[in-house]
């Protein structure tokens, strides 16, 4: 036991802390593997849970201000900033209800499926870049992974709607399913545009390419990406099921939609999942379009806080990057809240028309536009006004360009005639005579 603790301490001191400072270490040792995994999981779960706490408070405050109220003011002293914690305590003490006709197993497991899918997206999202990115699992196809996992959250919602044995829940779940499945198409198309410009699906690479001033952000790369960003944001809003696309829980028609029958802690898991995926689509937007961990003015690199100037400088630079990413993510969530309390809810046919008649065609045309822009104006940024920085040419596919395949030009099809008793010369002479 003592040796295990020693191992743990050794490992913590020699590998985890130092790897954050830029020294590479292996996590081969048995205990290191587990501890590394747990640290990442704990950080991500804390981000989602504490994020939900803050966002629910923010939602109450912003909605209050928009409706000319004060919002929470008392709990926790100023601004009522501990209101969500009080709500959480209230939710824990609530009775855990389950309808008689419900499918018990699915009813109980549905909130956790939503929550797990919502957290899983954070595995591949980087929070700081540079040569030592802060990311739980550095995936080569991070963008694709995040988009794939985000679509899974609806699964928990459908299970909840079905297993509640309530018509409101089932209607809500079916609406959400139709909506999310439709909006995944334009969402994926929009996410492809920055991937196309960066030449990589690696989110760390995409973020690193936007280094420098805000003119290098992909949203300002060309007119097509500028429009794509707004389409992406609309589709993200719909795919995380927020107003004005919150038909799954339209309280004026469906009581509360898919979570009508839920109470207490299970209900709050749905909410944590919702705020978690709001944060993850905002973080994705900030990395794909808004420069990721690079601020509008590159303070970190102007002050020399990069990994080239030593480990501590790189670490502090990464901290600044983390602040940037989180700030952009929180701004994205705040805009979502602002939209929710400003716009009325759409009807289901309007939701579908927005997706099929507007978002998908616009996304497709913008994809084409970005391709043409890249083709005609390579190496420019900021709507083609500035030359692209060298960082934008950094994509290395990891292979040498294949040597040009020296194919001989295809020969005309010819059947070799072998006539018994004739030499090849005689055959050729016969053919010439025949022609």
């Amino acid at each position: 036991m003592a040796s295990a603790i020693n191992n743990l301490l050794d490992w913590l001191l020699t590998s985890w802390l130092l790897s954050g400072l830029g020294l590479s270490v292996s996590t081969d040792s048995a205990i290191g593997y587990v501890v590394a995994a747990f640290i990442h999981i704990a950080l991500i779960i804390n981000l989602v849970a504490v994020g939900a706490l803050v966002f629910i408070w923010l939602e109450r405050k912003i909605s209050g201000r928009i409706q000319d109220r004060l919002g929470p003011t008392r709990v926790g002293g100023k601004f009522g900033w501990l209101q969500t914690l009080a709500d959480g305590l209230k939710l824990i003490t609530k009775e855990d209800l389950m309808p008689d006709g419900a499918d018990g197993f699915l009813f109980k497991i549905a909130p956790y499926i939503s929550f797990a899918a919502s957290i899983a997206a954070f595995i591949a999202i980087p929070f700081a870049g540079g040569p030592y990115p802060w990311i739980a699992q550095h995936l080569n196809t991070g963008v694709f992974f995040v988009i794939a996992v985000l679509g899974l959250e609806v699964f928990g919602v459908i299970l909840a709607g079905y297993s509640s044995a309530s018509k409101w829940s089932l209607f809500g779940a079916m609406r959400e399913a139709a909506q999310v499945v439709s909006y995944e198409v334009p969402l994926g198309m929009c996410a492809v545009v920055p991937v196309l410009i960066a030449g990589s699906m690696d989110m760390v690479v995409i973020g690193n390419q936007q280094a420098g001033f805000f003119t290098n952000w992909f949203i300002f790369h060309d007119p097509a990406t500028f429009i794509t960003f707004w389409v992406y944001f609309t589709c993200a809003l719909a795919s995380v099921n927020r107003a004005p696309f919150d038909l799954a829980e339209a309280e004026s028609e469906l009581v509360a939609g898919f979570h009508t029958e839920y109470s207490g802690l299970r209900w709050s898991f749905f909410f944590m999942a919702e705020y978690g995926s709001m944060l993850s689509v905002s973080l994705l937007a900030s990395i794909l379009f808004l420069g990721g961990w690079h601020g509008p003015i590159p303070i970190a690199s102007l002050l020399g806080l990069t990994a080239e100037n030593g480990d501590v400088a790189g670490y502090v630079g990464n901290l600044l990057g983390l602040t940037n990413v989180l700030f952009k993510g929180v701004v994205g969530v705040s805009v979502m809240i602002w939209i929710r309390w400003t716009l009325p809810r759409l009807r289901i046919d309007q939701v579908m028309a927005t997706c099929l008649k507007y978002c998908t065609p616009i996304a497709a045309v913008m994809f084409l536009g970005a391709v043409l822009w890249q083709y005609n104006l390579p190496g420019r940024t900021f709507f083609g006004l500035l030359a692209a920085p060298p960082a934008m040419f950094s994509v290395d596919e990891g292979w040498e360009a294949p040597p040009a395949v020296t194919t001989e030009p295809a020969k005309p099809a010819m059947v070799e005639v072998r006539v018994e008793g004739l030499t090849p010369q005689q055959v050729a002479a016969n053919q010439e005579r025949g022609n």
Partner: protein
Amino acid sequence: MNAIYWPSVFFLLFGAMACGFALAVLLSANIVRMAFYLVMSLAATAGLFFLAGQEFVGAMQLLIYVGGTLVLLIFGVMLTSQERFVNMKTLAGDWVIGMIAGGALLSLLTAAAFSVPEWRGPERAAVENLPIEPNATPIGMGLLGARVDQIGAPADERAGMAGYLFPFEIVSVHLLVVLIGAAYLARAKRRSNPLPTG
């Protein structure tokens, strides 16, 4: 303490999950639960891909199979809301036929898996020395027409490798035909000579 080889542990975990949930699909009678177990089984398979360092294939598995099952589930609930289909009872005869068909396939696959030498698991020492290349670039370049994974091959062999673009296009056009056909069949039939209604 260093004796645990964690990839093996997770391989066994994901493998057991995939097999267990696949069995649960068989044994469950409720169509929504079946779909849930199927999704879990497919997700565990995606976990196996992630474990092998091929996160592109794993994410593909999640997006296509798990997402596809999701749509299947929606239609399963919407179209078969009658009691008779929601709770399916398998007849004894169906069990026998299913066992024969499944058993034949299982025995074939098992025999194949153990008889081909290239498919046998490598030694652990060899596995630990493998370079880690979690990289989807060869697949992407292959889709564009450049088989970068075959660069070492002689030039005359490489000349015939056109990448995956052509088969991919054939499959997608085929799917498009199927979609148009389905839309045509499902379209509400218009009467050729509609009567004035009002």
